[in-house]
């Protein structure tokens, strides 16, 4: 009987520690956010690092985002054709492609790609700096690590993601256009006219707002997990994994929330 009570309390303790860890992590993330905002207005802005990060996060992600978008547009056109041809609705393919790409696929896929590429790189770089005491060294050199490491990266993320997504929108639509005109024998002029007539400002704008939010999530989570890396190489590896997983989940969650807000669903 005594043993059973002990086991029960051990079980309760385990559950409690899991919840404690979840809530303390949320608290730490909120504190990290408020510290970043505080130093944004009070500290120095490192312009050179900002532009360097703009190249790393934005320009260097262009090939992967471009390839993802073009193949997604192509597959979307093929799949839509397979389905729509069953009830002779092939003319709706340009509309489906442009709507799906601009509203959902370009921002979400670009977000996930950049999270895997740049978010992981940010967490690994800052995590390595943390475990090799470079962040402590920055503090001793009268440099605020938030101003030097976090703010330029977050700014670069929120600026470069919408630009990447806008380019991804164009390339994705181009992918659908190529398949429809070259493989499925659609009239090129009619395809482009359909696309242009159907797409609305809100379709593109909602995608760009999503990209802005995703840019923030990716860079912020990368910085947060990098700053909290512990131990050696294993700790850096774990912080990289956590950064990518949490960014991806938050991107999908925020995508749902923003979609329902934008389109009053």
């Amino acid at each position, binding site marked *: 009987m005594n043993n059973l009570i002990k086991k029960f309390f051990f079980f309760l303790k385990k559950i409690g520690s899991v919840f404690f860890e979840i809530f303390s992590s949320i608290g730490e993330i909120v504190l990290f956010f408020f510290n970043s905002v505080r130093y944004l207005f009070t500290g120095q802005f490192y312009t050179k690092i900002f532009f360097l990060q703009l190249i790393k996060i934005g320009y260097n992600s262009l090939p992967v985002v471009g390839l993802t978008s073009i193949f997604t547009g192509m597959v979307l056109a093929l799949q839509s054709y397979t389905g729509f041809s069953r009830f002779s609705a092939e003319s709706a393919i340009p509309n489906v492609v442009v709507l799906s790409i601009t509203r959902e696929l370009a921002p979400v896929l670009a977000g996930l790609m950049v999270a895997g590429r740049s978010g992981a790189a940010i967490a690994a*770089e800052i995590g390595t*700096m943390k475990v*090799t*005491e*470079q962040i*402590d*060294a*920055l*503090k*001793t*050199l*009268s*440099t*605020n690590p938030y101003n030097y490491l976090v703010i330029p990266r977050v700014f670069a993320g929120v600026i470069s993601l919408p630009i990447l997504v806008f380019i991804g929108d164009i390339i994705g639509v181009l992918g659908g256009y190529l398949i429809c005109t070259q493989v499925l024998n659609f009239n090129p002029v009619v395809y482009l006219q359909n696309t242009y007539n159907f797409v609305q400002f809100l379709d593109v704008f909602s995608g760009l707002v999503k990209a802005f939010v995703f840019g923030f999530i990716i860079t912020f989570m990368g910085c947060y997990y990098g700053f909290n890396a512990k131990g050696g190489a294993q700790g850096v590896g774990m912080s990289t994994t956590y950064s990518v997983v949490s960014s991806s989940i938050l991107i999908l969650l925020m995508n749902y929330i923003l979609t329902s807000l934008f389109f009053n669903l």
Partner: protein
Amino acid sequence: MRKVKIRIKNLSKNFGDKVVLKNLNLDIYESESLAIIGESGTGKSVLTKCIDGLEDYDSGIISYENIDNIRNLNTQKKNEYLGKFGILFQNAALLDSLTVEENLKFCKKDNFKKILNDVALPESLLNEYPNNLSIGVQKRIGLARAILKSPEILILDEPTTGLDPIIGKQINSLIKKLVKEKKITTITVTHDMQSVYEFSDYTAFIKKGSISWYGKSNEIKKKGNKSLLNFINGLY
């Protein structure tokens, strides 16, 4: 007459359930060089991080000149306090995305090249990235960075660990020259008894998170307690 620069009273620090420092008391005197020695994991580096403010402590007092307890300082004052220290980290901790020149410019925008003479390094290294340099050279640059901003207190965390005996000897001679010439208050965490004898005026031996022995470095062999003598003779 020795003047106390930093006074540590009943300092305790835990990491979770692990007790690292336990009611530790220590005075650090102005213009003197103090070596902190002890087994790995006894809290030597944690102690220096508590002293310079990089690590918070759980209880006790660290007072510095007219500051009663550094734990009570606000963020701005704490940064000012941290600015009084020059620190050579265990692995040099040079910013690896910057060149040697950019690393040194972080401390001082001009006249930073003079320091290279002090640490016996050629100017040709200025455009190199730290990862392309040996750990011995990185430590010398780390030392240059630490002294470049003319700190009131110099903290050296295992300056010769990981170096071969020849480079280790060079670093020791370099530190001895700098410490004796500039008369900077120096705290050195080390396992290397050569460092202790060469440039440390006093030695504090930490055991189980407290000071087990404190005295003049040249009297260790004569007056050291049993634990300390066992430690330096490798009898643990």
